[in-house]
């Protein structure tokens, strides 16, 4: 098996696996990072969203070889900072219902805020439109994003 080296949540990892394996399954099963979820396997739902070099990326349609040498951040990495304002906003707004889609939602929102610290509603729409939530938490996701930017503004 060929080896692929990349960084996951700041640590260098070496994985021996078929380079065509979707990053999703490598994260979940080779590295035990189950916060990244499988929802559709086709890039249609956003449950598997991670950051690759800071960009929100669908890990179910990103093969392992594409991660070679890159920096991957999963929800576990984002959450290692307990003070992360996005997570605090998510908790304050009680966004999660079943919670299954939320890691992907949070990573999509984090990538947006990294690009645009003060997004307009239509920019939020655009960034979040491809993350599905069957429980219907969208209104609270919007509120949590607004809350993050407002708190960020006050600091």
């Amino acid at each position, binding site marked *: 098996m060929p080896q692929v080296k990349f960084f996951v949540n700041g640590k260098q990892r070496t994985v021996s696996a078929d380079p065509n394996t979707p990053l999703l*399954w490598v994260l979940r099963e080779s590295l035990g990072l189950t916060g990244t979820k499988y929802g559709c396997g086709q890039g249609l739902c956003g449950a598997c969203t991670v950051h690759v070099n800071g960009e929100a990326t669908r890990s179910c349609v990103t093969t392992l070889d594409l991660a070679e040498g890159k920096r991957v951040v999963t929800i576990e990495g984002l959450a290692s900072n307990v003070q992360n304002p996005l997570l605090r906003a998510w908790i304050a707004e009680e966004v999660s219902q*079943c919670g299954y889609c939320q*890691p992907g939602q949070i990573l999509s929102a984090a990538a947006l805020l990294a690009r645009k610290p003060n997004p307009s509603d239509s920019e939020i729409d655009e960034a979040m439109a491809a993350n599905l939530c069957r429980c219907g938490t969208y209104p609270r996701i919007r509120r949590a994003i607004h809350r993050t930017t407002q708190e960020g503004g006050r600091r």
Partner: protein
Amino acid sequence: MNTTSSIITRREFVKVVSIAGGGLVLGFYLPSKEEALLPEMVPTTSLAPNAWLRVDRNGIVTVTVARSEMGQGVQTSLPMIVAEELEADWSSVRIEPAVVDPKYGDMTTGGSRSIRSNWLPLRKAGATAREMLVAAAADTWKVDRATCRAENGAVLHPTTNRKLSFGQLAEKAALLPVPSDPPLKKPDQFRIVGRSVPRLDSVEKVKGNAIFGIDMTLPDMLVAVIARCPTLGGKVKSFDASKALAVTGVRQVLQVESGIAVVAESTWAAMRGREMLSVAWDEGPNNTLSSADIEKIFEEKSKQEGLAVRKEGDTAAAFTSAAKRLSAIYTVPFLAHATMEPMNCLVHVRETEAEVWAPTQSPQWSQRAVAGVAGLPLEKVKIHTTLLGGGFGRRLMWDYTAEAAEVSKRIGRPVKVVWNREDDMQHDYYRPASYHRMEGALDSEGRLTSWAHHVVAPSISAQLFPNQPRQGPPDAVDGAAQLPYAVPNILIDYVMANTPVPIAWWRSVYNSQNPFANECFIDEVAVAAAKDPYEFRLQLLPPASRLRAVLELAATKAGWGKALPSGKGRGIACHACFGSFIAQVAEVSIKKEGSVKVDRIICAVDCGQVVNPDTVKAQIEGGVIFGLTAALKGEITIKQGRVQQSNFDDYELLRFDETPTVEVHIRTSAEEPTGIGEPGVPPVAPAVCNAIFAATGKRIRRLPILDRS
């Protein structure tokens, strides 16, 4: 199942369960106050506690209740009820999932019953523990117990300013007699119930360490995916596994009841292996079936006279003498549940016992199914309910647990069977399609004199349990038979029209379709009577009715009657179900190209005493969005016996940018709590369709609204 068990009178009780050094442990029984979904859902053989409350020496209060957490917040709301009566310090309250044992009562999570059936028993359990802790303190201090009181995790003796924590008192309390009728608090004394307490599962869910079924692993575990016949009711004819077995990581390929299982070291290897399988299918008898055939079946059946489930006055005579007659056909399609976490289950079947980790709403049905497949007695099957990545009724079914047990038994290893999205979409138990013929009559004053609703639909109970005749009215008229309006002549009747499409419960069940027909048609009738649809409904609802009160609240909050710019419309609908009352006003905009945008949904709900207001709001918001997906987009179609949709590109869910503002107004009530998981769904489709009519003059009588063709 021991049938003599049913003669035991099922009453709630509380008793001390001794666990050495465990502090105060009370076991209690939570009866199912509501009718079980089906008769066989009450499999209890003896009276044993099915819930526990433990106060340990550190004052930590642990509540063990077997209700599945699928996003509805039960694992916060149920302990809140206990903590209220116990006078616990909320920050020391924990919840522990129960492991299923056949001697416990109904543990099913469905029918929006978790709060309403557990409200009183949980309060009594908390009050019992509180009384015992107070008694233990009074005894320690040798004072009259009436001079002591419990507060925030401790017992106080205010006159001497003494205080003992629950932790200090727990062991002593455990030795005291159990009071039979502990006093319950009055609603105005509540300090936890009625407050928006943060959910206990929020933190783990946003940090990504919440464990769902699909995240479970065991040492030695393998993963399987199953190739299933794409045709409804088809089977495997033959298969060739050689290429699949050549995929790195694939261990074994075997034929099971539901298809061909590819067992591998990882999910991806199993999925890859399945792609390399070649299977010849025996497509079975349904391989020409199409959605058009099913519509024809419904139309044919609609000509039959139905079973009258509600008959008042004489509709036929009223129609004959009417000044105006209306009739309309409403239809709805099959729908998939599409939980974000697809079906999956981890099972380890050993020689003499089996252990199951399942995201399930019905641990007991799964237990029975696994026991059957594994050939084990019920009590040798242990079920651990994991978190559920959505349920909506899909996870009341036990197909995916039984299937995993079969694979594990055959390979002699723990195995997790994972469904991919396509499996999940194409092998669901769908929300039934249905056909509704509505007839209304008006007299010369524009009064509604007659109402007939002829329901043609498959029956979930008849299709799932063909050998168990249903008690009571047919399931498929739920939400039709309870027409809330005062009409002198009413006929609600039903023709069963079963099809080969597998069906089961879907959030709000038949209340997802019957009220659509009711609430759209009453709008048609109001317009025919030249009345305002809201005023028209009000006149038909008794003055003291709770439904009327929420209708008024929703209309007021929405500014009913205020003019809207052209291209916009407002529609209203209301419905009573799962014990609750709900009304919604929808506001829509019609774009130039004719596309519809839902701008706002204003909801008013009365669900009795509210335990956690924020959770109630979240459930209604979620219900509205779930209902909007169905109203606007949801449709499962059949062609050549196959479900045509397979993933989120052809079975679309409502998206973030399409979501309207959802406002939820709760009507204060001191009545007992009632269901909240499902009532948000039913009024959405009719409110939106009525709004579209108001904006365009076009009636929508067939869902989904956005017809792709």
